[in-house]
């Protein structure tokens, strides 16, 4: 890899290998049921008229989030309706924005929690969500949770 290519590489795509580190301690006994209560989950496919979005607490998660967090279902998905999207690779960002606005105004969702990865390009999903809610007539609280690539919650706050 040339020096120039290192400097210009996207931090979100930079290769990192942590397979040689010890697995983090945790309770791996038993099985945990899925907390997913709906289908589909892709933001591109979900419909704001779906009954599971009406007055719901909605979790909008970047695609990579659920793979990073060991207990995504138990600690974050439980009690929420879900939509997932990728702000970097997903096409049709304007469709995403319109869909979130429709979730706010038509489904009258109660709250929107946006979970993103720590990589810089992922913050675009939070910006997209905020602008969509600003465009909506109805106003709701938005919470941001930022997930580290090692599966830790780095930051959590109401916006």
């Amino acid at each position, binding site marked *: 890899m040339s020096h120039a290519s290192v400097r210009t590489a996207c931090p979100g795509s930079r290769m990192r290998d942590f397979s040689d580190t010890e697995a983090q301690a945790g309770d791996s006994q038993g099985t945990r049921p899925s907390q997913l209560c709906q289908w589909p989950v892709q933001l591109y496919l979900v419909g704001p008229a779906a009954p599971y979005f009406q007055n719901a*607490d909605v979790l909008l998660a970047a695609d990579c989030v659920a793979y990073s967090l060991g207990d995504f279902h138990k600690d974050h998905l439980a*009690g929420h309706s879900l939509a997932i999207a990728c702000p970097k690779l997903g096409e049709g960002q304007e469709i995403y924005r319109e869909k979130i606005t429709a979730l706010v105004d038509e489904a009258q969702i*109660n*709250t929107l929690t946006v979970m993103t990865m720590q990589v810089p390009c992922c913050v675009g999903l939070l910006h997209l969500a905020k602008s969509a809610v600003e465009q909506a007539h109805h106003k709701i*609280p*938005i919470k941001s949770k930022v997930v580290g690539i090692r599966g830790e919650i780095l930051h959590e706050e109401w916006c």
Partner: protein
Amino acid sequence: MNDYMQTGVKPLIEAFPEVGQVLERYGIACVQCTAGTCKLEEVLQLHALPPQDGTELMRQIARIVDPTGSALQPQAPTSAEPPRPVQFTYSPPVQRLVDEHVWIVRLLARIPDLVDEINTSDVIDGDLLRAMVDFIRGYADRFHHMKEEDILFDYTDRETPIVQVILQDHEQARGYVRAIVGAVEEDDGSALCANLVRYRELLTEHITKEDEILYPYIDRALTTHQVGEMWQRFEGAESGLEADVPQKYERFITNLESRFIQ
């Protein structure tokens, strides 16, 4: 040994004044509190110190209350709530209440100017004072305290000492406002100034208690769903008020400041 955890913090400070100094070092102002009905255990829960700070504070209090150390070391009360983050951020509906305090504080800041004007000119500007009372009743009480009393307190135990203190403050403030109105009607400058000063002192301490203790205490226990629900209830409550609220009251404060600030 842990009996004093169940003791009212005021009697404890009266018996051991150094306990008040220890609490102050941790930013807990029980010495200045006008009510002081909380038990020591409740004080520690309300302030949600980080575990190591709570343990150290308990150790210092134990050395004062039980210098021989003959009994068991006291344990700081455990809480189901997470420890307070280094920088606390309010949830959106609670932040709304904090932002409303800013307008009330701006009114309180001008009361000394008003009192000076009354004392030096010996003239009571009835129109200005009636507008001020309208702000207090329409904004501080109806717009702001209404959301606290009718909505926010539904998300905590209303019998908690801190909530009781806040409700008593609201009633006491309403009493001062009635006295202000009476003094204006009777053209009694002395009573007017005295009650304006009392109102300012009460509300200044009251707002600090809410911003620093009560609101974080309630906010930490809220679920995400409750935050959204409270937000919508605030929206509903405000939609029932006149269309120009709160803008007309914010304009009043801006005009009041331009009168006194050169």
